[in-house]
Structure formats: C-alpha cells, structure tokens
C-alpha cells in the first residue's frame, strides 16, 4: 500500500468510524436486556428517564433469584432426578449497562444463574417442563417466547420480559437456567 493510499484509507477509516461510532455495543433489540424504543441518546438524562420507570436493581435481582428458584422447582417437579449444583440460584455477576445506558451513574445489569443441574430432562418430559417454566415465568412478566433448539436430547428456549431481560433454559447432558437481566438503576 502506498503512502497516499494509506492516507486515503486512514481518512476513510476515520470517516466510517465517525458515522458508526465505536464506544461499546449499542442496543437495538429487546433481547439484550437494555432496550428502549426511544433510547437512541446516550445522555444520562434521556436514558436515565427510561430507567426511572423501571424497578430498582435490588428489586430486579431479588425478582430474578425468586424466578430462578421457581424455575428450579418446576423443572425438578417434572424431572426429580435433576441434581442442582448449588443450594440456590445466585447472582453470577452484576455489570455496567450497555449503550445507551453505559454512562448512567448507578445503572447495572444482573446476570443470575440457577447453578445448573446435573442430568438432562428426558424428551418425553420436555414439553411439560417447558410449559411449567413458562407458567412460572409468566407470573414474573416473561412471555415473549423464542425457541432456539428443540430436537431429541437437546432443547434450549428463552422467554423475555418487557424490559428485555432473558430467561434462558436449556437441557442436554445437563440442564441450565439463566437470566440475562435488563438495565436498572441502583
């Protein structure tokens, strides 16, 4: 590449990046837990306003853990042989929010994990298990259903709430249930 073409490429790079921005992962889909229809601005005021409408992060954490506890119970009721690795669900981590909320002071996302269970849910029981999960999830506002995988011996499905939080449940050799939370203020 010549010096001139390198210069042109560099300028093009600058212009392209100027158009696209490059400061994090923006949110365009409710499935990532940060979505808001009007939240194209990253200004704390605008984004924070959307978050003000939501429950606080402590409440969200408690709700997620409560839901996972119910999910575990529902799955175990259908498949009593599941052996959960932890005595109860845990918050795996809590992190800052993605854009446009990444600079909102105190805003965070919680990732909650059921702990995972040794053992899979037999195909014959899966429909009942997933139905039971959806039933308890619905009580917590999760309803937008996405079937990711549904074949013999392998199932993975998600339901979303209005804030964009995802409850993902899957089974194969072992069984997992995880919530990728939405953004909330402290």
């Amino acid at each position, binding site marked *: *590449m010549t010096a001139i073409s390198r210069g042109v490429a560099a300028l093009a*790079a600058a212009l392209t990046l100027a158009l696209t921005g*490059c400061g994090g992962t923006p949110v365009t889909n409710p499935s990532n837990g940060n979505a808001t229809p009007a939240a194209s601005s990253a200004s704390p005021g605008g984004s924070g306003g959307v978050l003000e409408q939501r429950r606080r992060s402590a409440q969200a954490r408690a709700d997620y853990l409560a839901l996972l506890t119910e999910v575990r119970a529902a799955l175990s009721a259908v498949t009593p042989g599941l052996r959960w690795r932890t005595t109860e669900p845990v918050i795996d981590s809590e992190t800052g929010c993605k854009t446009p909320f990444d600079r909102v002071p105190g805003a965070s996302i919680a990732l909650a994990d059921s702990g995972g269970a040794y053992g899979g849910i037999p195909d014959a029981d899966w429909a009942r298990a997933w139905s039971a999960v959806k039933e308890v999830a619905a009580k917590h506002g999760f309803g937008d259903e996405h079937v990711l995988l549904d074949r013999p011996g*392998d199932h993975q499905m*998600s339901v979303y709430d209005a804030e964009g939080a*995802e409850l993902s449940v899957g089974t194969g050799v072992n069984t997992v249930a995880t919530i990728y939370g939405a953004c909330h203020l402290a």
Partner: protein
Amino acid sequence: MPLTWGDILQWHPAALDSAEAALRAARNACTDRAGDLDGMATPKGWSGDAADNASVSLRRLTGELRDLVAQVSAAYTAVRDAADGVRGVESAVRTALDHAHAGEFAIDADGTVRDLRPQMCLSNTHDWLLIQQERQDRLGECALRVEAALRKAADVDADLGAVLAKILAGTIKGGDGSLGAAAASGEAMGRHSVLPPPGHGSPAENAAWWASLSADEREEVIGAHPEWIGNRDGVEFAARDRANRLLLDRRRAHVDERWAILERFCHDENGRFIYGNYLQVKAEYEDLKEERESIATLGAILARPGAHALLGLDFTTERTQAIVANGDVDHADHVAVFTPGLTSTVAGMGGYDSDMAALKLRTEGELFRRGEQGTVATVTWLGYQAPQWSTIFTSNSVASSGAAEAGGASLANFYRGINAARPTDPDLTALGHSYGSTTTGYALQQAGVDVDRAIFFGSPGLGTSSLDTLAIRSGAAYYAEAKWDGVGDLAAFGADPTGMKGMQHLQTGAATTPDGRAWEGIIGHLDYLKDGSTSQYSMAQVVGGHPDSAVHGKNVGLTDPISAQDWYPEWLK
C-alpha cells in the same frame, strides 16, 4: 561454594523455626531482666568508693546486657526472616518442579533443564516452528524458575550470614536507652528486606520472582509495595487485583483532595465558575476529571456482585488504562482477552464489562449443557491508549498504527503473563474488535504469546497481510464481519482480513446451527457481542474450545477484496 539445585532441594525451614523459637525465648529472658537491673540500683544513703565502683559496674553490666539484647534480637529477626525466606525457596522449588512436570521437562541436580518430550513431526512448517518456539519458551521459563529459586536461596543465605557476621564482629550495639529500645534496634538491624522484582522483567522472570516469595513476603509486597505488582505481567492475578484495589483507593483519595482544591479555586463564593482561574489549572483540572470518571467506573464495577478483578491500572498515561476481568484468570480452564478499539475509555468500560460477563456465562452454560465442567474467565483489556476522536490529528490517531503497535507489545506481555503465572496454560482466546483487532494483530506477531485461538471482528486490518506472521496455529484465526460494517473493508493496516488466506470466517447473519438452534443476525460495526446473535454464539463456542460448533460463513460485500468474492477461482487465491 555456590548453592546448587541439588542443595536447595534439601532446604526446609524447620531447623530455622526451632532456632527462632530459642532466640525469641532468650531475648525475652534478657528483656525481662530490666526490672532486676532497676532493683540493683545503688541503695539510698550508700556512698563512698565502694558505692562508686558498684555504680560503674552496674552501668557496664547494663551496657553489656543492652548489646546482648540487641544482638540476640538481631539474630532472632534474621533467623525468623531467613525461615520465611526458606519458605519462599520452597515455593520457588515447588513451582519449578510443577512447571517441569506439567511441561514434561527434567531438572538435573546442577539445575539444567532438559526436554523429555520427543520431537513432533508436522508437515505444516508454520505450526512446526510455532510448536518448537513454544517448547523453547516453556523450557526457558522452567530454567528461569530454577534460577529464581537459586537466587532467592543465595539471597537468604547472604542476608542471614551478614547479620551473624555483624553479631560476631560486635558491631550490633544496644545504644544507651532501655532494654526494650535495644531489642527494637536489634530487630531492625536483623531484618531482611523482601527481594524486589526484576527491573523490566519479562513475564516469565516476574512469575519466577513471585514464586520465590513466601506467603508472608507476598502479603508484605501487596500491602507495602502494591505498585511493584499491579501491572506486572507474570504475577498471579489475585495478587494483582488486591494490589490494584489498594492503588485505586490511594489514587481516589489523592484525586478527590486535589479536585476539591481546584473546584474551590475555580468557583467564587457564590458557586459561579471562574473561567480565568480554570484556564490557569486547565491541564490538571481536565486530567483529574478524566481520572475521577475512570475511578468511578472501576469502583462501580468492583463493588458489584461477581468475580470482578482489576488486573491492571495505570494513571501515568495520558488517559487512564485498566484491565478488568470477570472470573478467575488464575484458575479458569478457558480465558478470553478482549481488546476494544477506537473511543474506548476506562470511564466507558462498563458496556464492555457487561459484554464480557455475558460471554463468560453463556460459554459456561454451553459447556455445562454439553456435559463439560470447564470454567471461563473473560478480560476486557484496555492497557493501551486506544485512539479517541480528540486525538485524530495527533500521533495517537486512529489513522496511524502507532497506538496499535505500542498496545500490541503490552498486550503480548499480558498474554505471556497469563501463561507464565499459572502452572498449566489455560485455553486462551484473543478477541479484538475494530482498532482493537489491529492491536491484537500486532500482539500476535510477537513470539511466545501462546494464544490458542484469535477472533477478529470488524477489523480495519491486523497490521499484516499474511496469517503466517501471526504466532497462532493454522486454522486458529477467525474473522467476523457484518453487513454494512465499513470498517471491516478499510484494509487500513494490512490486508482486509476477509480475503486473508487461511482465515476462518464466522457467520454474522441470521443462522441456524447444525444442532438446530436459530440465531439472530447483526448489521453494522457495533453489535458483534449482542446477546442472542450468531456472532456471540460463535464466540462462546470458540472461547469454550469448540470452534467446530461455531457458525462458519462470511458475508462478502462488493467492497471486500476480489479474492474474497464467491466467484473468484480457488486456484487463483
């Protein structure tokens, strides 16, 4: 006669521990005599020559006792620290043996390290050279650990010998104060200082040094010298995290203090901003503002639940640099290091941290669902001066490779440090986005990084036009480029990765995996780590060591190189 590996294999602190206990008892017995000496003072009303002689004798006796107390105390401290030092030697020997065992090396009695693994034959020259290099590096690392153990042993031996020599020479004196003061003085003279880290040490040298410290010495380094290890690649990450948290607290206190002073200076009594005053202190004011925002972000990340760790922190650079982990990098089976690009700042690191936390959990979920127990740690590496819009016309411009090259050198050391700090290498994946992929590309052009796989996404170039220059095995470099991601077609720093020979391509459009799962497509430059996307799914597979389960395929556009177009004949590539 210099110490040999065979000598220090026999070293144990038990004998020194016994001597330490005996010396402590002797010192206590001496200091307890302080009351007896007071009682021996000249009785009231006794005068004359005999009284004067008695007084002189008592003073002499007291002086001799003070010297004795100082000497016993010095010996006690020296032996105690030597015992601790021997524990460091034991630790160094143990980790050297662990490394030798894990790497299939033998350490002879004279300290020579031999490779026990038979030579591999590979038809691929690039991979063969890479494996040879890795073996050489591992062998060199093991030899460094042997050297560090011997250096530590020599240091312990010399320090103890020096104190004992001073005692024998009678140069340790108790002074004119109390017996307690004499004991304190002696203890100070007998104390060994912790062996400092090697200046400009390589990650392997740093790891060997860290391994040569006892548990107490490590605690001392973390508490008293956190700046020694906060950014020192090769030191165990849990210790770096603790050191950096201390440094963060210290810096916060300093910044808050200076900020309060400047704020007062820049505002009048009615709270109005005084622009003239601000101009006088503008440089420091803006620096402090940037640091305050960075500290706030890091503080928030570290305060939240989860296995967050601060693996690097640097306020000496123009913009704050930091390295943040999700998970236990010291022990995780799979480690991914993500390097972001243009406009990345520590203050804005929260989003990346969130992406990495989600990637960790999704990867672990994928592994567990398929019946594996693997643990995962993900790292956001911002240990370089990522270009900003404000620096576009400076040497730190996004249009220049300077920041990527300098950052690449640091990143390479971080990769090396991950492998050096652990007895067994993790399954290590490098992730680089945008300008961060260029930085990653430069890092992987360095020898000895021992990265298992690399994923570049939305890349303006890897700083090379050939994958042969990267220190990763054939077929282990992956590229993801979404539709309408113009950055990926710039080829500003070497060839467009879309057209690079040997590159594996990850699908970014909507896809159904062979197991029947449906994933969402992305467009543009910014969504590669989006939850539920094909690209995030594939990254989780690659990071978890199952690249065959990733969704392969590329989105070739009109702006991609001709050689990357579907219609271009294979034989011409």
